[in-house]
């Protein structure tokens, strides 16, 4: 049993896929939003607090997939944390539901600066199909100051990864940002 397993492990390739390329314009735009001091404090690792402000749970399925072996988010220094108090990033999914607005504001108030707010998914971008409902304010930007938009319904894990890696790249010292 051991030898075939050992051989498979030696010859086989890892299940985890390669990192997606990161769009340079996004990185540059994000870099401009970040003061040099903040860059130093955040370093090359980010703690993410996921906040669902009213999604259909499709986004949660794909965000959860990021943590699995196929995408292995932690290899990039990105990890999910249980409290906004420990977070550098609020990753918000869903339209900004009126019934969630206070909880969103409180989560932001608990997140220490410097911080990023990422609106992930078409609903979070501008309310998506729920735009104009009496029960939603609109996109996440209607309630929180958003730094990065990731579109898609839901955004695939690869698309989410691209966006989150852009945050990491933006935090690199300016010389390392490829133009």
């Amino acid at each position, binding site marked *: 049993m051991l030898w075939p397993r050992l051989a498979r492990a030696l010859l086989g390739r890892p299940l985890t896929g390669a990192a997606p390329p990161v769009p340079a314009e996004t990185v540059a735009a994000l870099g401009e939003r970040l003061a040099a001091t903040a860059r130093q404090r955040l370093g090359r690792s980010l703690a993410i607090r996921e*906040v669902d402000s009213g999604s*259909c749970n*499709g986004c949660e399925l794909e965000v959860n*997939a990021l943590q699995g072996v196929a995408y292995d988010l932690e290899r990039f220094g990105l990890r999910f944390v249980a409290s906004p108090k420990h977070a550098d990033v609020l990753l918000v999914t869903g339209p900004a539901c009126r019934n969630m607005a206070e*909880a969103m504001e409180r989560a932001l108030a608990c997140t220490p600066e410097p911080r990023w707010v990422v609106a992930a998914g078409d609903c979070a971008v501008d309310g998506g*199909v729920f735009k104009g409902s009496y029960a939603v304010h609109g996109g996440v930007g209607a309630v929180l100051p958003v730094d990065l938009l990731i579109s898609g*319904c839901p955004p*695939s894990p690869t698309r989410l990864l691209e966006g989150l890696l852009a945050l990491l790249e933006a935090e690199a010292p300016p010389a390392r940002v490829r133009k």
Partner: protein
Amino acid sequence: MTATALIRAGAPQGARPFERFLLTAEAWSRLPAALAGDPSLGLMALWAEPGMVHAAFLAEAGGTVLLASAPAEGGRYAALSPARPGAIRFERMVRDLWGLTAEGGTDLRPWLDHGRWPVAGPLSGQPAPMPGAEASQPAFLPVEGEGIHQIPVGPIHAGVIEPGHFRFHVQGEVVVRLEARLGYKHKGTLSLMLGKSPRAAAAFPARLSGDSTVAHAWAFAAAAEAALGVAVPPRAVALRAVMAELERIHNHLNDWGFICNDAAFAFPHARCGWLREGVLRAAEVAFGHRLMMDRVLPGGVATDIAPGGAEAIRTALAAVEAEVPALLRIYESHASLQDRVVGTGYLDPAHAAAFAAGGFVGRASGRRFDARLVPGYAPYDLLAPPIAVEAGGDVDARVRVRVAELTASVMLVRRLLAELPEGATMAPLPDRAGEGVGLVEGFRGECLAWLRLDEGGLIRGAFLRDPSWLQWPLLEAAIEGNIVADFPLCNKSFNCSYSGVDL
């Protein structure tokens, strides 16, 4: 007079394929007492239109669905909750959305309305503006006893999951009472569907609960097709079933992994996650979307299966089939894991029956109901899936039902792909009036959709009922007497949808 006879004595309204009977307010007021003496009629849903209340029942014996309606004179109707505990949350929702009050209701606290909308009774036809209203604090059911303390959790939870508030009353380590307060994700889904054609409104059932996007879209499409008398091409029917079974497989794999993870046993979580990823990637190859969202539309399916799609699905399913027996052996042979799941979160079959709980929650507590078999629909009439029923009622029983179902679904998909009919994948929809009901078994249980179209073929009334409506209250029963630390395990073994019931 039995409840069934009482309903059937009403005036038929021409809903298809299940008839809706219009009762007088007086006849409806006799319904609670009749239901109390007729346990075989399960309440599936309760909803409304301006000035009118509707209910859907399942006659457990014959497996037929029966709809009943009555005018809510003066904004009031007789509550069904004294006879059917499952009606409680529906009655609270009906008051919040349509402004109709359940007279004699067991619980009249608000549910979806947290006092934060700009209007009250948004679907009532004449919503009252609520400018600058102060949101009230929720009131929870009281608990008395020595050393009782409360643990408030949420709406934002520690994991990557949907928002909702759980109020635990705890004595020592033991949960005395759990009460969920949901509604945080209320998006006004039903209001957005009104006035649209079924085709234009299909985006909303597809986003009622993303993990059940295929099942809800199918139930909604079936309701529209029944209302309009449209026959769906056989190829589209088969492709819908392929997608629905893939959805069942990926969700069952996901939750099985997460349940093991919640018992600090990470290996099955990693493997199930990988197998599920394979299924999602195959779905993307075959149907152009990982979750197959917006692929089922009224009239058929949005796109035919892509060339190479069937092969991609077969390959992904072969990996699932090859590994599930080994994973099941691991699941069964580790005492530390079994210790956490066996006997935990016991749901009494009597409770499951009283709430007419569908899906694996009902089937793991002895309730033999699967909408694919009874009342049944194509293509399952020719392809009857085996039904997995357990009597245990605990976390383990729910896992076992799901593992059996995912194995059965792999076989179903194989057969569907092997016998895929040729031909069109979409039928045109006429613009005309009609009323229809759709009932489709999603991974969580039966998804019910009802809609009423006007002369122009636009939606005048609609309701989408996720199976979680009848499962959430049972989670509260199942956790009683368990330790707080086992709540994640119990919760994941139910995996009720928040968005699905928040509407």
